[in-house]
């Protein structure tokens, strides 16, 4: 500590800022990429669950509506196909890199920039 002169605060601040700028976008880029490339099995697992759960919800809704309205098989058939469509939609959203969640649209990435702004000002 004695022989090593502590760096000046401005120097440290500048270095911190460059380091932060270097590190901060990195997880963002890596995150989008690490989704699919995480591991083959994990990804397949995710897609499978995505597909099946939407289908299950569709069939479940159809079954309940059928029981309520007394239209035995028909609504379940209709909602089976709707559920399958929703499942494929969810899978497509997962695969096309809209993130892990089946949101409707990619979150605007440009609002991340002003997120960094105030933080970078130290």
């Amino acid at each position, binding site marked *: 500590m004695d022989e090593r002169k502590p760096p000046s605060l401005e120097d440290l601040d500048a270095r911190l800022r460059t380091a932060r700028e270097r590190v901060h976008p990195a997880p963002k880029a890596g995150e989008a990429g690490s989704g699919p490339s995480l591991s083959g099995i994990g990804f397949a*697992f995710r897609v499978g669950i995505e597909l099946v*759960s*939407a289908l299950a*919800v569709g069939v479940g809704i159809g079954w309940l509506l059928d029981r309520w309205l007394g239209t035995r098989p028909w609504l379940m058939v209709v909602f089976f196909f709707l*559920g399958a469509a929703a499942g494929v939609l*969810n899978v497509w959203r997962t695969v096309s890199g809209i993130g892990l*969640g089946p949101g*409707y649209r990619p979150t605007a990435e440009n*609002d991340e920039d002003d*997120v960094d702004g105030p933080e970078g000002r130290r």
Partner: protein
Amino acid sequence: MASPLEQFEIHRLAPLKIGGIDAAFTNSSLYMAIAVVGVTLFLTLGMRKAAIIPGRWQSMAEVLYDFISGMVRDNAGRDARAYFPFVFTLFMFILFANLIGLIPGAFAVTSHVIVTFALAGVVFVGVTLIALFKHGLKFFSYFLPPDTPLYMAPLLVPIEVISYLARPITLSLRLFANMMAGHTMLHVFAGFVIVLGIFGIAPMAVIVALYVLELLVALLQAYVFAILTCLYLHDALHLH
């Protein structure tokens, strides 16, 4: 040989009935309580000194806090700051439940679909209520993508609704399936070790590798659960 699924059995430790509902304190409740106490001790004892230069323990607590704080900021937006405590609690609970479940002989709480579904249900209902309070009836425009021709609405709206309703199922199923598959696999390989005698060393090596993988899965699934909660929050706050 014991079935690989026996480890998921629920035992009543202290029977209790409240108005005909079986509310016994089970081994599942016990390990949930352990997870909660563990998180509390880990964070409060770690931050007890609150030194400027953190020690190892304080660093762990701070890194986790920082990690989730950054996750909420980046994925849910700045105005989601108010929901950080919820996401952090959720993440820590799942993380500890997963990790404690990996201790040999312990019970893995998150390998029961009802537990993960309850967690996902809270997230789903909460996020939907937030969206409804924030946007009122405009929330329902969420189910019709913009610029859709009106004659497509009868087809697209049910699909979007189903896609939305599938969220808690996916969320809970993913955590549950990962945990259960991992624990079952470990048990199956452990069974091989006993049966094969001296050659059991090979499955033993596999178990060691699998165990490391399970540690990764435990971390990863807690992370995925938290990040999906953040993304749903983002949707609720900004509606696309």
